[in-house]
C-alpha cells in the first residue's frame, strides 16, 4: 500500500499499476478456514518454511485463504495461475507441490478423481465447481484475504469509486432496487426498498447506522463466515456504498455484528478494516467525495436471538438481546434510537457486484421479473452450506432458481455411503424439511415458503434414511427453547412444553393424542409470539408433521424408531454368525455389559446397555446390529 487515495483517479492508477506488475510465477493458495480441522495451519507453516529454506521466495507465493468450497476434500490447495486443484493435501506433499509449481508440471496424484476415475486439473473443471455459479465466492481461492492489494488487483473498490464519483446516492438506491436484490439473511426483503426508507427517515443530527449482520446464528451454516474470512473487503466495500446511498450527506456510522465463535473471521475483518482506513477508503472525505464513514466491530455473545434486528441493536447498545415489537421499524428508530439499516453479510457483498456490472447483468441471473416490483422474483446467486449426509459437503453458490436436485445431486454428488435420501432441511431453525417429492422445486425465496420451508440464510442439511425426523424436530425445538429470550409466554413456555411432548414420542411414551396436542400448541406458539424466533420456531416441527407423519406414527403406534436413532426404542445385539469373538467390543463397552468367551460369539446383556453405540463403532466384522 501507498498513501491514502485522495480521489478515484488515484485509486484507479494504483489498481492499474498492480495489474501491470509482474506476478511471481506461482501462487499456492491454502484454505485455512474449516480445513484447519484437517491440519491446514500446519500446511501453511510447512509451505512457508520450505519456501524459505529452498530460497524460492522470488518464485512462489504462499497464501492462506478462506473456504474454497469443496470442504469435503480438504485440506485444499490451488496452484495459480494454472488453477491446479489439489485435494486432501498432506504435509508430506509439500515439496512435490513446490517442485511441480516450479517446473510448471501438474502433480497428478493429488488431482480430483470422480467416481469413474476421471481426473480433473483445474478447479473450475471439477464437477463440484463446474455446476455452480460462483460470483461472490469467485475470489475465495485466488486472493489473500489479508491483502487489500490482492482485492484491488482483482478489480475491488472500483464499484465504490464509481458510486462515489459518478452516482448520486438516490441513483445507487434506484439501481439496487431495480436489481431485485433481496436480503440474504432470511427474510428476503428487497434491499433497495429498505435503503430508501432508511434514507427518508428523519434523523435530527443526521446520524444513520449502516449495520452488517454477521451473527450467522443458523446452527449448520457458514456462508457469511466464508465471505468474511475469504474476501472481507467485498463486504466492507458494499457497506461503504451503502453508507453513501443511505447516509450521505449526513453522518453515517458503520457496525459489523459478528459471531465470536468465528475468531479467524473477526481477525481478518479487523485487518481488512485497518487496511481500508490506511487506504483512505474509510474515514474522512472518502475518495474526495465528502463521505465520512467508519466501521466498528461488535462481537456477539453466542445468542441466536441476537441475529434478529432489534435484539442485535440492543446487543450493540451493551444490553441483553431481547427483541422489541416492530410497530416502528428499525429503519426509523433503531440503534441508539436512530435510523438504522441492517443487512446480512451476503447482501452487502452483492452490492459492489451490482454497481460494477449493472442491473441488466444481475437480473439475468435468477427467477421471476423484478422490473416493476422488487418482490417479483429472486435475482442473483445464493450461497448454501451443503452439509449433512451428502457426498460432497461444502460451500456452493448457485443461481436462484436452481433445483434442490441440482444442488444435492449434480453438485453434492448425492447421498453418501450408498444410503437413501430422506429429507433436506433449509432455513435453519426457522425453516423446514422437504421430502424427496420436492426435489425438483426451484430454490428461491417464494417457492420455498410455499412448500413449507424457507430460504433462510443458506443452511442446507441433507438427511438420509438414518436420520429420524422426529429427532430432527426435537433438535430444533430444543435449540430454540434454549435460545428463546424468555419474553413471551407462548415462545418460552410453549417451546419447553413442545420439547417435552416430542421427548414423550421419542421415548415411546407418546400416543396419537400427543401428536394432536403438539399440533394445537404449535399453532398457538406461531400465533402469539412477538418476534420471528417464536413465530417461525414451529416450522421444522410442522413441516416434518406434514411430510413425515408416518415416522411420528411409527413412534407412537409401534414404539419403533424407523431410523434407529431414538435410544429408548432401539436395542443393540450381536449377530452370532458374524461375530468372531475378537473381544474388542467387550473391552471397549463402557458398561462392561458384553459377555462371552474369546473366539466364541459374544452377547450383550441388555439390562445395563446404555446404547452408546461404541460396540458397533469398534466391531470390524459388522456383527453388531441395531434394531
Amino acid at each position, binding site marked *: 500500500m501507498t498513501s491514502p487515495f485522495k480521489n478515484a483517479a488515484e485509486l484507479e492508477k494504483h489498481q492499474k499499476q498492480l495489474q501491470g506488475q509482474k506476478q511471481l510465477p506461482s501462487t499456492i493458495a491454502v484454505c485455512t478456514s474449516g480445513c484447519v480441522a484437517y491440519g491446514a495451519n500446519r500446511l501453511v507453516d510447512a509451505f512457508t518454511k520450505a519456501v524459505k529454506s529452498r530460497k524460492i521466495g522470488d518464485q512462489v507465493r504462499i497464501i492462506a485463504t478462506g473456504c474454497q468450497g469443496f470442504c469435503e476434500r480438504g485440506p485444499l490447495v490451488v496452484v495459480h495461475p494454472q488453477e491446479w486443484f489439489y485435494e486432501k493435501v498432506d504435509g508430506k506433499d509439500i515439496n512435490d507441490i513446490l517442485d511441480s509449481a516450479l517446473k510448471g508440471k501438474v502433480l497428478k496424484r493429488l488431482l480430483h478423481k470422480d467416481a469413474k476415475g476421471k481426473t480433473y486439473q483445474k478447479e473450475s473443471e471439477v464437477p463440484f465447481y463446474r455446476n455452480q455459479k460462483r460470483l461472490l465466492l469467485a475470489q475465495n481461492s485466488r486472493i489473500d484475504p489479508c491483502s487489500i492489494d490482492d482485492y484491488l488487483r482483482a478489480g475491488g473498490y472500483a464499484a465504490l469509486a464509481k458510486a462515489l464519483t459518478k452516482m448520486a446516492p438516490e441513483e445507487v438506491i434506484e439501481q439496487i432496487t431495480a436489481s431485485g436484490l433481496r436480503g440474504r439473511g432470511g427474510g428476503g426483503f428487497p434491499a433497495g426498498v429498505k435503503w430508501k426508507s432508511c434514507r427518508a427517515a428523519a434523523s435530527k443530527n443526521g446520524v444513520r447506522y449502516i449495520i452488517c449482520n454477521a451473527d450467522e446464528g443458523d*446452527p449448520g451454516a457458514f456462508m457469511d463466515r466464508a465471505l468474511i474470512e475469504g474476501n472481507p473487503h467485498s463486504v466492507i466495500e458494499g457497506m461503504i456504498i451503502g453508507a453513501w446511498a443511505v447516509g450521505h450527506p449526513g453522518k453515517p456510522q458503520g457496525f459489523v455484528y459478528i459471531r*465470536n465463535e468465528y475468531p479467524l473471521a473477526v481477525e481478518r475483518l479487523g485487518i481488512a478494516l485497518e487496511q481500508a482506513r490506511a487506504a483512505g477508503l474509510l474515514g474522512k472525505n472518502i475518495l474526495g467525495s465528502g463521505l465520512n464513514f467508519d466501521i466498528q466491530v*461488535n462481537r*456477539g455473545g453466542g445468542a441466536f436471538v441476537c441475529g434478529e434486528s432489534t435484539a442485535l441493536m440492543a446487543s450493540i447498545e*451493551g*444490553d441483553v438481546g431481547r427483541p422489541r415489537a416492530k410497530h416502528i421499524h428499525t429503519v426509523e428508530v433503531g440503534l441508539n434510537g436512530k435510523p438504522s439499516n441492517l443487512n446480512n453479510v451476503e447482501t452487502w457483498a452483492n452490492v459492489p457486484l451490482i454497481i460494477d456490472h449493472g442491473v441488466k447483468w444481475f437480473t439475468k441471473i435468477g427467477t421471476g421479473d423484478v422490473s416493476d416490483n422488487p418482490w417479483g422474483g429472486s435475482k442473483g446467486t445464493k450461497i448454501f*452450506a451443503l452439509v*449433512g449426509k451428502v457426498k460432497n*459437503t461444502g460451500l456452493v453458490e448457485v443461481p436462484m432458481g436452481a433445483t434442490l436436485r441440482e444442488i444435492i445431486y449434480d453438485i453434492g454428488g448425492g447421498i453418501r455411503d450408498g444410503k437413501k435420501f430422506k429429507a433436506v432441511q433449509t432455513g435453519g431453525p426457522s425453516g423446514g424439511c422437504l421430502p424427496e417429492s420436492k426435489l425438483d422445486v426451484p430454490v428461491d425465496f417464494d417457492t420455498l415458503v410455499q412448500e413449507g420451508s424457507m430460504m433462510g440464510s443458506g443452511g442446507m442439511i441433507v438427511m438420509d434414511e438414518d436420520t429420524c425426523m422426529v429427532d430432527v424436530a426435537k433438535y430444533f425445538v430444543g435449540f430454540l427453547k434454549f435460545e428463546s429470550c424468555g419474553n413471551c409466554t407462548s415462545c418460552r413456555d410453549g417451546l419447553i412444553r413442545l420439547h417435552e411432548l416430542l421427548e414423550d414420542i421419542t421415548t415411546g411414551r407418546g400416543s396419537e393424542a400427543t401428536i394432536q396436542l403438539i399440533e394445537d400448541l404449535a399453532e398457538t406458539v406461531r400465533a402469539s409470539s412477538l418476534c420471528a424466533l417464536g413465530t417461525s420456531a414451529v416450522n421444522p416441527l410442522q413441516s416434518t408433521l406434514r411430510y413425515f407423519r408416518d415416522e411420528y406414527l411409527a413412534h407412537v403406534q409401534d414404539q419403533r424408531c424407523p431410523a434407529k436413532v431414538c435410544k429408548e426404542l432401539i436395542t443393540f445385539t450381536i449377530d452370532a454368525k458374524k461375530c468372531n469373538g475378537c473381544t474388542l467390543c467387550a473391552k471397549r463397552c463402557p458398561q462392561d455389559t458384553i459377555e462371552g468367551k474369546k473366539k466364541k460369539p459374544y452377547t450383550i446383556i441388555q439390562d445395563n446397555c446404555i446404547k452408546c453405540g461404541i460396540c458397533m463403532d469398534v466391531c470390524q466384522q459388522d456383527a453388531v446390529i441395531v434394531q
Partner: protein
Amino acid sequence: MTAAKTIDPKRIDRVLARHPQGKPTALVNLLHDLQAEFRYLPELAMEKAASYLNVPNGQLFRVATFYESFHLKPRGKHIATVCTGTACHVRGAPKLTDHISREFEIPVGGTTKNMELTLETVNCVGACALGPLLILDGEYHGNMSPAKLDRTLKTIKRG
C-alpha cells in the same frame, strides 16, 4: 485453581484500557476480552468493568448471564467443546456429549472436580463437512465418534 483467588487488578486495568471509557457499546467486546484474559469473568473484573463503562453492576451481570459465551465461574484446565450444530447433530454429536458426560461425570457446562476438564457445546463452527466435531483446547478434531473420543481425551486426568 489458584488463579481464582488472586486476581491482579492491573491485569484487569490493562484490558479495560483497550476500550473506550464510558461507552456501553463496548460492553460485550470488553467482556470477551476480559474472559480471554482470565478464561472466565472474575467478580472483581465485572465490578471494575461496570464502573469503567459507567453502567450499573446489574446491567453487566444481566448481560453476562444472558449470553451463552460468558462464564462467571472458573473453568477447567482443558475445555472440550462439542459442536451441536445441525450438521453435526445429524452425524451423531449427541453421542459425543453423552459419552464425555458419562466418562467424566460432568453435565454439559460442568467442570470435573479436579478442575481438569470442562465440557461445553457450540452451535456450528463452520466445519460442518467434518462433523461431528470436537474442539479440544481450540484444536479441531473432525469425524469424531465415541470410540475415537477415548483416544483424544486419553491424557486428561479423571476425577
